[in-house]
């Protein structure tokens, strides 16, 4: 097997993926009625590779740190819910920039995902060329505005 053959577009290891998934599902879990997927189910890693490549190294370093934060023998993914939250809280100072960047990137990936948009009752498509229908609105509501007459300042008012 040559080096070329084992090249991969993965930016994180399998172990890091487990940590990432544990983190993602804490950010956006699936909805109780399962109409909305969890953030683990939206191709986040691929999104980072293609859309936010500058974030990949930051992500990898943060996942390494998070995996063993708190001094537990267990990796992050194996911790209880409460212990994961503690680990996140403990890492916030060290990983402040990571968390600040992570949330908007996860949201951006999530809220353009086909399953998510369909779950919200929206069409998963570009705005153009179909566009959107918007009602004109009730222009009779302007009757009282008309009835009050002109409000622009006449120049002879001085």
């Amino acid at each position, binding site marked *: 097997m040559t080096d070329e053959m084992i090249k991969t577009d993965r930016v994180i290891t399998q172990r890091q993926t487990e940590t990432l998934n544990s983190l993602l599902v804490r950010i956006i879990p699936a909805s109780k009625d399962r109409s909305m997927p969890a953030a683990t189910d939206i191709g986040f890693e691929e999104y980072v590779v293609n859309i936010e490549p500058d974030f990949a190294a930051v992500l990898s370093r943060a996942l390494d740190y998070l995996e063993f934060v708190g001094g537990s023998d267990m990796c992050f993914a194996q911790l209880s819910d409460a212990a994961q939250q503690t680990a996140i809280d403990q890492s916030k100072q060290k990983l402040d920039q990571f968390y600040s960047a992570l949330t908007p990137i996860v949201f951006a990936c999530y*809220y353009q995902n086909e399953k998510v948009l369909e779950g919200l009752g929206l069409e*998963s498509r*570009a705005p153009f060329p179909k566009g*959107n229908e918007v009602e004109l*609105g009730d222009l009779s509501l302007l009757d009282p505005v008309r009835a009050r007459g002109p409000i622009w300042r006449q120049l002879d*008012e001085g």
Partner: protein
Amino acid sequence: MVNKTVDVLIIGAGASGAAAAWSLADTGMHIMCMEQGDWAKQSDYPSNTKDWEVRRNKEMSVSPNVRQMKSDYPINDQESPISVVNYNGVGGSTVLYAAHFPRLHPSDFKVKSLDGVAEDWPIDYFQLEPYYQQNDKNIGVSGLDGDPAYPDKQLPLPPIPMGKMGNVIGEGFNKLGWHWWPSDAAIISEPYEGRDRCINLGPCISGCSQGAKSSADVTYWPMAIRAGVELKTNCRVREITVDDKGMATGVIYYDAQGQEQEQKAEVVIVACNGVGTPRLLLNSKSELFPDGLANSSGLVGKNLMMHPWNHMEGFFEPGLASHLGPQGSCVLSQQFYESDANRDFDRGYGLQVTRGSSPIATAINGYNRGDIPWGDGHHDAFKKYFGTNIAVGVCVEDLPELHNCVTLDPDITDSDGIAAPKINYRLSENSLKMLAHGRARSRELLEAAGAKQINDYGQLRYAGWHLLGTARMGRDPATSVVNEWGRSHDVKNLFIVDGSIFVTSAAGNPTTTIQALALYIADTMKKNLANLFD
């Protein structure tokens, strides 16, 4: 290399340069326009792709410092609470603007006479009125006739839709007895002159893929080019040259390959707006004009006005679908526009009601506010905030102050080595009082309309769309840069037609007035061709 002399050279292919080019084309003169950017392609705009929300914040960001296209130049705005936003290409900032198109009021031209502040304009509303009308017809403007905030005016197209949110906010205005009206918009609500109507794509400020937004690249430029105007793109002008009599002789520019070139011209028209124009004039130093061209008054770059802007939004019951519709244009209120002696500030402001947020923006803004959390509450919170918000902007009249200015940055240059502009700007006490008044009224409005939650984001940083006043017009050469028809007091064959010639800013979006001024100046030039330099 020196190119053949042209009759008229226009620098900048944005709102004003395009209008002036179209108007002057019927003279049969050789008219050339140089634009530092290129044509934008509608098929490249973010709304052609599903990832439009992400793309609009990067490659089509409204900030040149973020966007960093080859045609962009850096702007040092570290000493300003308002950052400049613009677009550099054919059509200029109209490519990315919201197309909100309120005219000035008659009183806006007489602020010194009426209120004792700033200066009167050397022209008035009624002189400009036919040019407003001509501009509306040329580009296609939509709106509802009969707005009592203005003298009678007729727009060529019916209004763009307000949507359900328009009804809700309209009821709120009516409870308070305040003026409101569907916004005039440079967006075509019906097919017009070969362009199809607006189909409510939403993100107007990242370019209109439909071509329904009446940006200068899809309106004036096709007409001007058909009429014989030569438009040279990817040409960045470094300086305007002069002869020993103090007349402009043309420009030195860098072509698409970065090669220095010279273009001679009988008349030079500057149309680079309130930051680009003073930057060019200040970069055009010579023995005769050591402080920059046309700057004997010392006012080139001074009196920068940018319209401080407060942003507040209210959240309502689900069902508004407020995320749909042309982003920047829904409803305008001019209840507090005209001066009122009972208030503690001079002049007034407009309230601009704009649409809600798209999905990603809803999630990120909601998270940043603390309303949309990580975890189990995420989905319910998102549904509560998506499509339910109505934004109210306060656009205050920014009065001219000498210390608010554009200068040349001593260190930063663009990719051609030309000194970049530096902005020094601070909010006046008057603006702060007006913003405070507007914030209170915005809250009152949203409460009257039934908002369940109101968030006040304060004065916006990325709100520097309206770049005005840095080469103002006037009759006195000691207190103005150009005369009452846009001609430099110092250089008789140099004209300025953009927002830099505004004497005061009024309290609304300026592009309709910028284009009306460009048409008025071009028309006056045509009427005075025989003695243009006298």
